[in-house]
């Protein structure tokens, strides 16, 4: 069975600072990896995904994540955050060929002025 660990439950940062949200997964088989973002009182939006190919994936709003198979990690990074990035971020994994998406417990990113 797959599992996901998000090492930080809360990450406070100042505006324009870099940020890294950590995600480690456990699986004995090949997986797909995802980051979802949930803004206050809203649903989940897909931020970026790793299905295959290049291990570095990017989103349209400046976030990137790198799949590291040896460390079983999929950390999310942004070089300079904005106030509007304040949200809950969820890492998720599913076994290739499976519909079951397993989520981490989320990391609350708070960007302060």
């Amino acid at each position, binding site marked *: 069975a797959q599992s996901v660990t998000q090492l930080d439950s809360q990450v406070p940062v100042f505006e324009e600072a870099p940020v890294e949200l950590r995600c480690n997964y456990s699986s004995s088989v090949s997986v797909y990896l995802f980051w*979802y973002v949930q803004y206050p009182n*809203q*649903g989940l939006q*897909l931020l970026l*995904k790793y299905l295959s190919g290049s291990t570095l994936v990017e989103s349209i709003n400046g976030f990137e994540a790198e799949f590291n198979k040896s460390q079983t990690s999929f950390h999310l990074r942004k070089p300079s955050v904005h106030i509007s990035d304040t949200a809950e971020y969820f890492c998720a994994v599913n076994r*290739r060929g*499976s*519909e079951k998406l*397993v989520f981490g417990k*989320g990391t609350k990113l708070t960007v302060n002025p």
Partner: protein
Amino acid sequence: DTAVSQTPKYLVTQMGNDKSIKCEQNLGHDTMYWYKQDSKKFLKIMFSYNNKELIINETVPNRFSPKSPDKAHLNLHINSLELGDSAVYFCASSRDTYEQYFGPGTRLTVT
């Protein structure tokens, strides 16, 4: 155009009542899901349907019954509501087993 929609957005009801939440997707996806997000924001899959056929049922009480009249709709009916059912319920859909697209959620409060 809304890709995955849910109604209602908010639902406040008393213990013991029966309620339904509706979900529709216009993405042409074959698979639909129901998730529960608890007060600590933890997300857990409840059900998954592929082409109207149940494929995942995650140890959910029998009081919860999903119904898929066609592959664009997946409704959730809950009987005899309990306080512990209070949560945000999300519907999602996907093509095959790739990324899932989520609806806006239904906040259920049982008093």
